[in-house]
Each structure stands twice: as C-alpha cells, then as structure tokens.
C-alpha cells in the first residue's frame, strides 16, 4: 500500500535537497538553454561561404563569369586569385581554403568554340559531409553559369550538355568516406569525455568522502596533488588512443598516412589539456554530481562546436571563436591532418601551440582555485 503521507515525506525531502544544490539547479536550466542556442544558431550542417582559391590562367570572360556565379551562389567565398597552382596547393594543405578552382588557359576561347574544355576543381574532402551542398551547387552552376554570356551566335551552346566539363579532384579521403572522417574524430571525443570526467571527480571525491582533510594536513604541494592525480589518467588515455587507432586501422580500414609518433605527441598534449580542465572542474564542484554535470556542460559544446559533428566552417563567427577555445577543435585538426593528409610537424605546429596555450591557462586557473586549506 502506498501511503500518501510517507510519499509526501519523500517528495518534500527530495525537493529540499535539489533546491539546496544551486549548481545542479542552474545546470537543469542551463543545459537546455545551451542546447537551444547551439543547435538553433551555431550549427549548420549545410555550410556556405567555403573559402575558395581561383587559379585563372585564362583571364577570359567565361572564367570570370563562372567565378562570379560561384560567389553569387553563397556556397563559395573566393578568397583570392592566386598565380600558380603551387601556391593554391599550399593553401589547400594549410587548410586555408577548401576548394581550388583551376581555370585552364584558353578556357574562354575553347568554350566559345564548343570544345567543352575541362575545368578542374580540387577539394579538401577530409570531411565529405561539409562540402556536399557546395558540390551539388557547383554541378548546377556548370550548366547555367555561362548562360547569360552565351548570347547571340553562341546561344546553341546553352543546351545540355554543359559548355564545359567539370572535373572534381578530391584531395585526401578520395573515397569520400565519412567513416574516415568520423573515426579519427571519435578518438578526440572519447578522450574528452573520459579524461574530463575522471579528473573532475578526483578532488571532488576526496572532499566528499572527507579524505581531503587528511590530505591537506600532509606536506603535499598542490602541484604534487594535481600531477599525482593526472598522471595515471594520461596512461589510461594512451590505452584508449591505442585501442581506437587499432580499431580504426583494422576494423574500419582508416589509413594512417602520417607519423604515429607525431600523433602520440599531439595526443599527449590533448590528454593533458583535458585532464587540466577536469581538475579545474573538481576544484569548483562541491560534490561528484556537480562535477559530472560540469563535465557534461563542457562536453556538449566540445562535440557540437569542434567540427566533430558539424562542419566548423559552417558556423557563425562567434561559434567558431568559442570552438577555437576548445582543445578538441585543435586536436581534431591534428588527428585528421596526420591520419588523412599526412601532416608533418610544421603543419600541426599551430594547432599544437593552441592546445599547449589552453593547457597552460587552464592549469594556472586550477592552481589558483586549489585551496590548501578548508576555508
């Protein structure tokens, strides 16, 4: 038999306890709000304004018309004309542009002659989903972009087939496999989740169980406590990296183009940065539930804004800035760069520096927050 009185007693107690835990209370409001903002405003699975470089060896009217049409479609943002293919190539490797459009010499003349010249578009296909919209538009453009210019005697060329042949060359991830993109990214996501949660519980658990009091009367320095709590998880993080890499290679057939050692080095930085974030949480959280909630609060934007689930280039400026502050964003670029593009030390230096900077800033915050007393 359910007794109303006893049930009420239980319900009232639970309410009082929830209300006392301010952080839990605000998280229950904060998390849906954050999701609304991120999903509603930041995320765009059909990114536009993808940076595009143009190598125009033709300097003719049709080439210019095509570029103008691409610009007008809003999918492409022509960041500039470059003189040589070599330079365009560099932009692509450095991740500064997603597309390079090569307009061959005599393009306009050959179009006018009805020879259907080839137009080469090179694309960075590490993230195939991010460019599917742009590619669709491009083939549509091929048919209609020149219609306006093909007037008078050339009007007959308007009819299909299109007046030139569009050749798409996928750099990296030629198979356009989404798995190739997701599996390396998953490594970062898994590490973020486990590393942050583990360390966020570390100090909180000591406090909740009352062992903090004993720990604090011993002559341990804060840095010793922090490093002591972080190091075991670095090892665990490496085990995870090894498992995921093995699975990526053996189960999903993801190539590892670059150096595994470089990848390990990048992973060390990333793991350390996440552990520092978790440790900082644990100096703030009052109990383990709060620590879990803070980890979740951190995890959400990490997944959504880092370019793991949704294309980074599709996000508005503010969301990109937020994303840059997250270690996962930089790690994804490192992992995908090394595994799919074969990036070397120089190529990942900037991203590694960004992770190191985050690590330092977060560690300083953690040290400032860590209390050597019970006050």
């Amino acid at each position, binding site marked *: 038999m359910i007794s109303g009185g006893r049930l009420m007693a239980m319900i009232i107690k639970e309410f009082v306890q929830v209300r006392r835990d301010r952080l839990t209370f605000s998280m229950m409001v904060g998390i849906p709000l954050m999701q609304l903002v991120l999903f509603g405003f930041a995320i765009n699975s059909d990114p536009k304004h993808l940076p595009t470089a143009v190598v125009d060896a033709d300097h003719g009217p049709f080439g210019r018309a095509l570029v103008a049409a691409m610009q007008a479609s809003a999918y492409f943002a022509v960041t500039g004309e470059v003189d040589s293919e070599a330079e365009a190539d560099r932009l692509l490797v450095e991740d500064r542009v997603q597309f390079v459009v090569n307009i061959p010499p005599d393009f306009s003349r050959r179009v006018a002659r009805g020879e259907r010249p080839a137009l080469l578009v090179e694309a960075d296909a590490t993230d195939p989903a991010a460019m599917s919209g742009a590619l669709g538009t491009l083939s549509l453009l091929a048919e209609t972009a020149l219609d306006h210019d093909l007037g008078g005697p050339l009007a007959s060329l308007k009819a299909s087939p299109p007046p030139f042949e569009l050749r798409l060359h996928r750099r990296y991830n030629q198979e356009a496999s989404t798995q190739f993109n997701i599996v390396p990214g998953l490594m970062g996501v898994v590490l973020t989740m486990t590393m942050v949660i583990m360390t966020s519980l570390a100090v909180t658990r000591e406090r909740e169980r009352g062992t*903090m009091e004993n720990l*604090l009367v011993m002559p341990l320095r804060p840095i010793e406590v922090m490093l002591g709590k972080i190091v075991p998880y670095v090892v665990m993080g490496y085990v995870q990296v090894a498992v995921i890499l093995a699975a990526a290679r053996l189960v999903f057939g993801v190539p590892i183009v670059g150096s595994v050692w470089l990848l390990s080095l990048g992973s060390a930085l990333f793991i350390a940065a996440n552990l520092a974030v978790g440790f900082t949480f644990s100096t703030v959280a009052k109990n383990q539930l709060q620590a879990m909630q803070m980890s979740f609060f951190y995890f959400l934007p990490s997944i959504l804004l880092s370019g793991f689930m949704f294309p980074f280039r599709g996000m508005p400026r503010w969301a990109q800035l937020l994303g840059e502050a997250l270690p996962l964003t930089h790690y994804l670029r490192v992992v995908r760069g090394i595994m799919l593009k074969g990036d070397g030390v120089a190529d990942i230096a900037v991203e590694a520096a960004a992770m190191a900077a985050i690590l330092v800033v977060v560690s300083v915050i953690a040290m400032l927050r860590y209390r050597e007393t019970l*006050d």
Partner: protein
Amino acid sequence: MTPGAAIEVEGLTKSFAGRVVVDRLSLAVPSGRIMGFLGPNGSGKTTTLRMLCGLLTPDSGRGTCLGLDILTEAQRIKRQVGYMTQRFSLYEDLSIVENLDFIGRVFGLAERRRKVSQALDRLGLTARRRQLAGELSGGWKQRLALAACILHEPRLLLLDEPTAGVDPKARRDFWAQIHGLAADGMTVLVSTHYMDEAERCHLIAYIAYGRLLAKGPVAQVIAEAGLSTFTITAAADKVAELADRLTGLPGVDLVAPFGSALHVGGGDREQLLASLAPYRDNPALVWREDSATLEDAFIHLMGKSSDNFSNGPVS
C-alpha cells in the same frame, strides 16, 4: 615565546558566514605535556585544532606551533604535526597497509616498511593488513587513524576525539600509549567529551561558544569553579520528584540524578544552603557534602556561558 611551549597562540578568531565560532582564543601548551581540550558540541574545538595545523586560516590572531608561525609556516608545521581528524579521513577503498604506506611515502619516511609493520604490530592488525579500511568497525577505524597520524613520529599531536566509539580496554591502551609518547617529549592536544580522559591529562582547557573559559590542571579548574555540592540519597521513586522541586531554586545551579541519589550544587554557597534548608530535616533523605567533580565544574561553566551567548548572534 614562553620557553618550552609547543603551542602558543594569542587572540585566534575565526568566523563562518559572519558568526564568530572561535573568539580571541589564547592558549599555551608546554612541551611534553598532554592537554585535554574540552567543551560542548559546536564550541569550536575542531575549528581551533584546524587552525593550529594550517587547515583553516584564522581571521585574526597569531601564534606558533613548535616555534613555527601558524600563519606563514604551515607547510613546515605539517611535517612535524600529527593530526587525527574527528571524522575518519583515511581512504576506505584502500587496505590498511596501503593507507599506511601512502602516508609513509608522502612523509618520505626512511625505513618505511619497518615502520609500517611496527605500526601494524602495535595495533594487532598484522593479520588483517590487507582488509579494506572501510570494512573496519568504528573503533578499529579510530585505532588505525591514530596509528596513521603517529607514523611519521611527529613532535606535536592534535587529536580530535580520538577515542569516540572505542571500547574501555582499547581506550586504556590508547592513553597508556599517549603517556608513553609524552614521556618521550611529544606534546599532545586532545579533544574529548569523556571526563575520565580529561582527568588523565596534565592540563585541561575548557572552551564554550568559542571562548576559553578555564585552563590549568584538573584540580585547579575544579577549585576555580568554586562549587559546593551535596549528594542526597533518597528512595528510588522519590528522586525524580525531589529533582523537580530543587531545579530552578535560587543558588541551585546543578541537579543531576544518579540512580537513587541526587547530586546538587551551586556556585553561591550561602544561597544554595538557604534554598536547600527546608529539605535538610526530612528524615527520608540522607545528606552528604562532597567535593565537586570535573563534570560539575564544566556543567556549571557551560550554564554560565550560555547566558552570555544568548544575547550574542544566533545561528
């Protein structure tokens, strides 16, 4: 610094959320002595001990532990102080020996293994060394915690109710051990609620509502309370009735039944005698004047101080 004082603090004050919990406390504990730290629940004993070992920062006041400044040299104090917390604070998910090993390593003990196994022997826990600390009974946890805080051979021990929940035999062993350590020069400040333990201390300090009300050797603290007390023996069923009648009479500060006897006393002898006079001729009652106990002195002190406190801040 008074020569030979292991602890010497002046004007220690601490408040939590605007409520003064320890109020201008001054205390000196001579080296090699055992001082009992007594006071009602919530009087600020734990808070004081925490300030002494650097776990809490005093709002004001100053002082030294083992000649080191408690405000600036906490890190060095920690090496030489053993603090036993009121609540069990070793790792419940580590075994007994793992807990001791951890502490030994943190303090960088030479001959750690030998010291740990000695501690286990002394405790009689060698056979159960691999048992998880969390699985120990309450009393055994206390004994383990004590072993843990003397492992690094500190010069000063701060013990917060170390014998709460410990059986009489173990308590006696414990005190024998404490006296042994003190004889070797260790200073001990130990909080307790047991009167028999207080009487085993060289000195006692009594704190109530954050203020130090009495300190000194036991006999002196009792004498300074200036109490006159009587034991009245009556028929068992009459004791409660008599207690009711005497309670609240002018000059009667304490009334405590002990089986078929009633213990009454007061600070103002004249007034006490006047109030008791109507009952003294009752043939059913046997009167005997006796000397006040330490407990009488404390209860008397507590009664006086709560009066002061009620016009202070309330929680």
